[in-house]
């Protein structure tokens, strides 16, 4: 399911990958990164910074760390560097991650 986004995707989607963001179903295209899928889904903030400021992917090339998101239980994952997989569970982050609960190493 797609909600209003300022970002357009090319129309040639071959197949679809289904994942969830904060429990909500999201459809992405095979080969998209998590950040691209989130931007295409809604251009909303995909996290809040340590000071509570809204942030979303910016550079899309692994430099700015503004695309951090929780991927399958692992916080601070760089969405722009991770391709989508069917069944992925994404969560928007609010503030900094806690010391405990960093998820398993991929």
């Amino acid at each position, binding site marked *: 399911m797609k909600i209003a986004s300022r970002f357009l995707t090319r129309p040639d989607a071959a197949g679809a990958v289904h994942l969830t963001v904060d429990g909500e179903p999201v459809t992405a295209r095979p080969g998209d990164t998590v950040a691209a899928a989130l931007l295409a889904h809604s251009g909303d903030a995909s996290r809040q910074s*340590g000071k509570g400021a809204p942030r979303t992917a910016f550079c899309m090339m692994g430099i700015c*760390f503004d695309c951090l998101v929780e991927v399958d239980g692992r916080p*601070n994952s760089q969405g722009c560097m991770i391709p989508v997989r069917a069944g992925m569970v994404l969560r928007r982050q609010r*503030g*900094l*991650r*806690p*010391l*405990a*609960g*960093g*998820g398993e190493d991929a």
Partner: protein
Amino acid sequence: MATRPSEITIIGGGVVGLSVALGLLQARRRVTVLDGSDGDFRASQGNFGLVWLQGKGADFAPYADWTRDAVAAWPGFAAMLEELSGTGLALDQSGGFEVFTDRAELEDFSAALERQQAHLGNRFSHEIVAADDLRRMHPGIGPGVVGATFCALDGHVNPLRLLRALRSAVSALGGRILSGAQVSDIAAATGGGFDLSLRDGRRLGAERVVLCAGLGTTPLATQLGFVTRVRPQRGELLITERLADRLPFLSSTIRQVDEGGVQIGGTKADVGPDDSETLGMMATLARHAVTVFPALADVRVVRAWGALRVMSPDGYPVYARSPRHPGAYLVTCHSGVTLAPLHATALAEWIDETSNAPDLEAFDENRFALSDAA
């Protein structure tokens, strides 16, 4: 038209040069800071940010005293600098540990602290903390830790904000900072003062010069007849992703910066003018951190870097006046963060030769003259 030479020209705009500049400006001198380029090795941009007393000067009482005074001066210095610059420094002096995973190292360091204690008497105190007591105090400490030492006077500061604050304070007080001003030659001018040639061809005059050029010091020091030669010592550091929780302790190798990331450091290597980071040291640092505080195993490192310490032959500060060229001074040290408050006060007075300037004879470079001639 030639510009009027400023009263005091400082060569090098790192933490050391800027601290001295700040002190001289507060004494109402006119000050110009000539700072090199981004390609230079710059300890002030890659250091660990400790404001640290524990262990300092165990074998050289003047350095123990000097560091003790610096640490005591930090709160007032930080308040003044924050006021002048509008930059928060995140100074926290609530005590720090040296944590050990090797019994022999713990014993050696405990003995060094006894010697430091003998120099400083009631101006210092330290504790040796047994491993079980440490784990009772901080349950997250790992089983590989054999003990620690603690000094209630130790602390840390945000070193990059310190550098930025010093730059803005120097400018706010009317100091001139010229970036990209690499001094290549310095000579006594006929009729007094000094002629400086910059790498880009510019020439500048100066009434007095203070050489604070970090690892760029040696060639200019030689031209002024100083015998001190500084050498680089590489340290490598890691920083992790930022955490919402605060680590319950500060140690000399693991410190959580005010923004939440955990900085891990403390390696030493004599590898010449090479500040690259190495996979081997990164692994060593990560292993050390996880041994001390196992919960960090789960936390990711986001950056690693190397930086070069500026070391005098014996590792202690050098504050020297040129015997051959009155008006030329050499200032270099390791731990320039810790010592900043004194560089901006007592040392600036000594350079300014005021009547209440401290006696800094112990830090003169004549201590190297003999070995240098041998």
